């Protein structure tokens, strides 16, 4: 078992441009079933061996796809996500960066009444090592195992997955929830999925400054945690009022500070690593307890 992705994942690519086709090829190499892509006006043809469809509805009808990955540029990303949701797809993974918040609020409102799960935007996607990769992460750094991994970051996720892999700690599913202030699957929801996943033995949560998703995740685990967890918060030295790369990574007033997040995890009995390098040992200790 795993969450979100497994061997039955069938992916349609939305936005088969330069980045989209590069990563579609990497996903196929990994063994992910990339069953099609949408390109309005090119339906019925193929591109690099990928069947093209005019609409998501047609793609889903023809391929039985259950997942889509969105690479389309920010101005058109809302439309792409809504089209995928409308086509009744189970999982949408949005890689696109720079989507206006107002668009994401609309998408979030539509998600409330749909059965679709959205991961991202502005994230690396998700991977169930050994089964399926729907994202842009370098697969070499991941390995199958029992660590469920949730992160708001991209490269930091790869870095920590690499550290875990080197320490012999394989991963059940890694979910890059995205660095925007409004995302489809916020950290607490992703943590919930892993907490309820029988294949996940321990959870690693990589948060960063801004918002209060980490606090809510800590609250949830404090009440309902079934397995050990370890956390890390990026941006502990960031000054207030400055956005640190990610649109969502900003301390405003007394909101979203690293201290508040560290405190929330510690109060929930979840050890917080001072540096990514400490995470594997903390996970091993937590698993021994």
């Amino acid at each position, binding site marked *: 078992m795993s969450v979100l992705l497994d061997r039955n994942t069938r992916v349609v690519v939305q936005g088969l441009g330069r980045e989209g086709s590069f990563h579609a090829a990497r996903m196929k190499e990994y063994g992910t079933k990339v069953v099609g892509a949408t390109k309005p006006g090119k339906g019925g043809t193929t591109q690099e061996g990928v069947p093209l469809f005019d609409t998501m509805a047609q793609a889903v009808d023809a391929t039985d796809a259950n997942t889509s990955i969105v690479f389309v540029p920010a101005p058109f990303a809302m439309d792409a996500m809504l089209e995928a949701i409308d086509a009744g797809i189970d999982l949408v993974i949005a890689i696109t960066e720079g989507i206006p918040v107002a668009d994401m609020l609309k998408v979030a409102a539509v998600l409330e009444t749909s059965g679709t799960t959205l991961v991202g935007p502005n994230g690396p996607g998700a991977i169930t090592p050994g089964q399926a990769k729907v994202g842009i992460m370098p697969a070499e750094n991941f390995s199958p195992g029992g660590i469920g991994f949730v992160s708001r970051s991209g490269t930091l*996720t790869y870095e920590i997955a690499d550290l875990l892999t080197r320490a012999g700690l394989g991963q059940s599913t890694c979910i890059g929830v995205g660095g925007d202030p409004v995302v489809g699957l916020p950290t607490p929801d992703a943590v919930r999925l892993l907490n309820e996943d029988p294949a996940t033995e321990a959870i690693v949560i990589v948060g960063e400054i801004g918002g*209060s998703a980490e606090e809510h995740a800590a609250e949830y685990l404090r009440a309902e945690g079934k397995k050990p967890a370890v956390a890390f918060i990026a*941006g502990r030295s*960031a000054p207030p009022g400055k956005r640190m790369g990610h649109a969502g990574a900003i301390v405003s007033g007394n909101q979203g500070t690293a201290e508040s997040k560290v405190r929330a995890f510690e109060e929930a009995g979840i050890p917080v690593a001072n540096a990514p390098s400490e995470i594997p040992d903390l996970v091993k200790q937590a698993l021994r307890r």
Partner: protein
Amino acid sequence: MLDAEAPRDGGCVSEVGRVVADGDGDGETKAVPSRKRGDDARVETARQEDRLTASPRDRGIEERGESMGRGNERHQPTISSNGPVKLHEYQAKQLLARAGIPIPDGRLATTADEAERAARAIGASVAVKAQVHVGGRGKAGGIRIAKTPAEARDAAKAILGLEIKGLRVEKVYVERAADVDRELYLGITLDRDRRRPVVMLSTVGGMDIEQVAATDPDKIARGWPSPLLGLLPFEARALAFEAGVPEPQRDAVADIARKLFTVYVQTDASLVEINPLFVQKDRSLLAGDAKLDVDDNALYRQPELAKLKEISRDEEAEEKARALGFSYVQLDGDVGIIGNGAGLVMSTLDAVKLAGGRAANFLDVGGGAKEEVVRSALEIVLANPRVRSVLINIFGGITRGDEVAKGILAVIATHPPRVPLVIRLSGTEAEAGRKLLASAPLESRETMDDAAKEAVRLAKEPVRV
């Protein structure tokens, strides 16, 4: 008169120099609004509406774009590129007026002469208000009351050129003083937890809403309208009831809330605030101060608002970096930082702090780290004279570590940097990359922690010649 009121921080002034908070939500201590009233208060009429209806274009963005242009030539410092685009009070008010929200009659002035003419045209007591993107204008002497055009001239003379928290005042807004009875707060922003806009209304206006939220949360009524439907009439009414707005203003406040929501949506605002929202003695409502921040992800579809972006000297490097697709934030330490990925760079900053040093900047080059990227990034970081060492932390993912190393070596060969470099490569083919770097004139470390320690040590060493 203002001096006597000096402890009050503020943005908006009623008739006789009572300074009230500027509601900029910057977390600063805000004034408790004084209940003193001036004897010679004059009633503000709806005349500014005449002006608006007479010439709607007059207050349009188009025209303001031009006046902005003039401001930029003078190198007006202000808006941060790293976050929302902030509008000046007068710009925000013009957007409110366009949506039908009553604002005081006001005019922009960049000279004392213009301020005098503006006051004469308004024909009443005026407030002369510094237009700078910092909180605490009033406290810093950036707001003065003038009863005559001559006084307005003197006030503008005193305010123009003033440095408020490092920003030079280049523009003042001359505005008819209101006849204030009470003050309300009205604001709309994003509620990240609920993934909805939140509309906040309070009868405790004129204060920093964060402070009210902390000390008196019950004083703020909140509503979370659907982003698909907008703020519906019943929701706006419910807010007015919940906030305890009295009957004479209830409908008008609900109406302004709905209009403000329209502004929030139409401008892609991340924050829009009327604080204070004056209730005048004649029971009419008037926006005392206004704040509007625009989501910079939405600027591509807000070309008029994008034009209002102003860049300060401090932010020139941030803008340059942004043009290259990097994300850069200048900090006050001496260890320059370059990395790929926001989270990784944030962690690198943290590692430097843990090692007892201070980062000079945040620089995320985004995806891969090819030669060109490393070269431009180094240029930006080394332009900061405070930088004493540079720590490059790259995760080789899709771009392999050995390729990254080759890029770094090429840059060093052609552009030897003026300070020592510490490189830390991790991820795919990192070992191969480190081998390539072994003979280069730089320090290569295997872990982020070790690299941070070395960069901090080097930054503390005497300057190498």
